[in-house]
């Protein structure tokens, strides 16, 4: 039966063949010939230019000249000649052979030279040696690290903390662990370079809002909301973050955290707070900007800080709820793929924390000193003070620029040199001019520490007035 069925189908086919119009047959024939040609022709590679002979290729290879690996740097480039500090960078510092009072190191609580901190580090050195010889996952986790993480979590009153061995790497590894391609991050214009690198590594959409301008941020959030309504499926999987600093390194002012919290709950955005300058400075007990404003710390999703300012050690930490922090233990690049913090530095940080907890009045003292010098520096002709009155890291910018950034930098250098020659160590704030997204204007950095006496503060202020007078007028 099958055979007959087949034959019948064949007959039908032949019939159709005879009955079809001529153009139809011709078209089919052309198509069949085309297919046969394609099947047998050589594969067409898009990359190779098949018109180049071997000889031509060799000529191209001979002729090609690369750029030099690095362009030459002019000898008088301001960033090339470093200040050489002989001896410890403490309150009295020897810079380029001259003894000065230190107004340039971020040693806010004066813990760099503290005997208790040093002896804790010595004890740790005797027990563990210097290096840890491995990342946290492979026998690089010491009991000191676990203790430091517990103490930091307890101090900041969060569930968990995680430490990194390099301050820059802390926020630069934390952001890409959560924010991936396709997510949206709203970040302040004045964010520091480490945050910018973290954002670049995360490949997310970055939206900059004007510095401390909540209206601008709200406008961006509203725009995003209307975008979401057009595409709700995508909006349901796009994570959103706001990244701000507690005390901005580049401008010395504070972020308006209560308004940010309101915006967080209104637009369902998570907040990452970078507290490198405000940890150990703001708040009645030094817990940072959340204590300063009296905000519940669980409202902030992630707090990241480095231990290189107030704690006078090396490294950084992130703290928050376990739900958030635990993720970094497997996806924080600077945590998993790098050796852990040397135990002596962790022990120094623990002792510094002890001192911070036992003496909560140093924060008040520091704030008083900041206010004093902030007032004393007002009214210098030619220089304006940039920063909050309670910020221990201020900037002095030129009131009027002389035209080009290079000339501004040279002028400020003369002011700094004048001060250095008279015994006050200052430095200009250094930036990578081509790499910063929003380059701040050139400025002199003034850092206030708890060790400076009122006399020294007054001396510094009057010296700066003198320097400005003689150089800028």
């Amino acid at each position, binding site marked *: 039966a099958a055979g007959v069925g087949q034959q019948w189908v064949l007959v039908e086919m032949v019939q159709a063949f005879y009955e079809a119009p001529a153009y139809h047959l011709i078209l089919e024939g052309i198509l069949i010939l085309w297919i046969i040609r394609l099947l047998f022709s050589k594969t067409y590679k898009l990359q190779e230019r098949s018109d180049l002979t071997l000889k031509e290729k060799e000529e191209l290879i001979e002729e090609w000249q690369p750029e030099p690996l690095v362009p030459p740097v002019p000898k008088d480039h301001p960033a090339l000649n*470093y200040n050489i500090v002989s001896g410890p960078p403490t309150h009295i510092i020897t810079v380029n052979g001259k003894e000065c009072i230190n107004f340039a*190191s971020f040693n806010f609580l004066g813990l760099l030279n503290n005997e208790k901190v040093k002896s804790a580090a010595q004890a740790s050195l005797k027990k563990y040696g210097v290096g840890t010889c491995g990342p946290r996952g492979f026998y690089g986790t010491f009991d000191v690290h676990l203790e430091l993480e517990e103490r930091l979590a307890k101090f900041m009153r969060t569930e968990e903390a995680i430490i990194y061995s390099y301050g820059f790497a802390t926020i630069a590894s934390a952001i890409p662990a959560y924010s991936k391609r396709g997510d949206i991050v709203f970040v302040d214009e004045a964010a520091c370079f480490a945050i910018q690198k973290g954002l670049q590594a995360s490949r997310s959409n970055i939206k900059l809002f004007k510095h401390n301008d909540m209206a601008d941020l709200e406008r961006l959030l509203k725009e995003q909301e209307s975008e979401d309504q057009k595409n709700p499926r995508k909006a349901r999987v796009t994570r959103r973050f706001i990244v701000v600093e507690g005390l901005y390194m580049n401008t010395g002012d504070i972020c308006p955290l209560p308004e940010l919290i309101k915006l967080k709950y209104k637009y369902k955005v998570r907040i990452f707070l970078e507290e490198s300058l405000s940890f150990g400075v703001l708040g009645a007990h030094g817990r940072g900007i959340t204590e300063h404003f009296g905000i519940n710390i669980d409202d902030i999703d992630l707090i990241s800080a480095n231990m290189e300012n107030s704690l006078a050690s090396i490294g950084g930490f992130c703290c928050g709820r376990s739900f958030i922090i635990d993720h970094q233990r497997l996806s924080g690049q600077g945590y998993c793929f790098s050796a852990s913090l040397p135990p002596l530095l962790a022990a120094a940080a623990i002792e510094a924390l002890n001192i911070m907890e036992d003496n909560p009045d140093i924060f008040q003292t520091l704030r008083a000193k900041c206010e004093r010098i902030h007032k004393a520096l007002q009214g210098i002709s030619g220089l304006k003070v940039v920063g909050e009155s309670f910020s221990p890291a201020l900037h002095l910018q030129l009131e009027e620029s002389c035209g080009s950034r290079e000339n501004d930098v040279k002028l400020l250098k003369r002011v700094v040199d004048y001060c250095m020659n008279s015994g006050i160590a200052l430095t200009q704030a250094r930036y990578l001019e081509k790499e910063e997204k929003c380059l701040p204007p050139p400025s002199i950095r003034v850092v206030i520490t708890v060790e400076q006496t009122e006399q020294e503060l007054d001396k510094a202020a009057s010296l700066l007035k003198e320097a400005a007078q003689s150089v800028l007028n």
Partner: protein
Amino acid sequence: INHIVHNGGLYKRPFNEAFEETPMLVAVLTYVGYGVLTLFGYLRDFMRQWKIEKCQNATEREEQKDFVPLYQDFENFYNRNLYMRIRDSWNRPICSVPGAKVDMMERVSHDYNWTFTYTGRVIKDIINMGSYNYLGFAQKTGACQEAAAKVLSQYGAGVCSTRQEMGNLDKHEELEKLVARFLGVESAMAYGMGFATNSMNIPALVGKGCLILSDELNHASLVLGARLSGATIRIFKHNNMQSLEKLLKDAIVHGQPRTRRPWKKILILVEGIYSMEGSIVRLPEVIALKKKYKSYLYLDEAHSIGALGPSGRGVVDYFGLNPEDVDVMMGTFTKSFGAAGGYIGGKKELIDYLRTYSHSAAYATSMSPPVVEQIITSVKCIMGEDGTTIGKARVQQLAENTRYFRRRLKEMGFIIYGNEDSPVVPLMLYMPAKIGAFGREMLKRNIGVVVVGFPATPIIESRARFCLSAAHTKEMLDTALKEINEVGDLLQLKYSRRRLVPLLDRPFDETTYEETED
């Protein structure tokens, strides 16, 4: 495939690298193992979703439950269902100096590794085959520690400023001059973290319009640095010079994609010793290619500095080449010097440029003084400038230990990857259950090993990785080898299908090295 290469005089000594193929049965069983684990994973997730099983994960806050979820459920599938089961093999806390023997804090879990509690007991004198302590400088007594203690009491622990501002101490200048002398280059610069050295300096050297040719198995820091730079990245097969040459030819002949403009510069990124494979880069061939095609070479000697070469100066010394042929010599101080941090060495123009334009110099705090002192003392020791021969003795001891250990493991029948001379010894485990079992069994016998699985290695090629040290004595190695033999029999790890002819038991002598038999 076993290569013994004397490539036309480029190599002055035999180059023996072996990556034995995975036996077919083992590969099939490994895939089956992962399949079973995945099925069970789905089952457990289902049970957790329907509240049949208690969910032990940390959860989102009540007030934020309507926010977009922070983690995709699927991302964490591997974490929840495979990694959690054997999590006790990693992050083991220790409480002594990470030398040849180490003390570990005992921890137990009563809920299958979701949480750990410390019993308070300390397991003493575990033979440490996991720390990167190649030359044994992780010590709590000795010249290095004393010098570091002195500097600590003088300078303090922190620095509180960046290199370009007020953080450049005289100690840093001393260190950099010493490192430049050690490497045989014009100038060097040191940074506080090895990872950051790569991720912050590669973007300063190359940018858009440049080409980066990177090895398949490069470390995460090199990959991150390459990505952050904005240059085009092309990957060549691991240690495969034909693949590299083809990429170089194509790049120069065809130029940039689409616009056909010539590339501004080409940078080749390789490592000295690859830490997961134990292979050594074919440096003479890479340098020959680099010179022929006028490109630049960036050599990351994180694991090979101090560990290779007759005088401990790394892979350039091992092959007897000129350090000036390598454009950028990068390395870390964490492994062979017992400290922390990284360095870059090269011509003076390069280092001057990096001093001005490196991200780390402008924004990151400089190195801590006692750590700097540790590096200075240990480098002087290796060079022999401290008046003793301790450094030279350690370098030789490491080479002996390496050869001995690798040979004995191969005789026992394990599959060992990598080069004969590399102190990183990967022993193949393949199956997921054996990863956890190997780690735990070795710990029961007082030996601490490192086991690695996916995602650090390809999914079926999980391995145990031994890091040899000059501090390991022959007795320690023999004890370790005995236990590895026992565990190998217990877990059936002896997959190798070729056996080495065992050498007669006589003291190690470099000239009596026998060839392998297939």
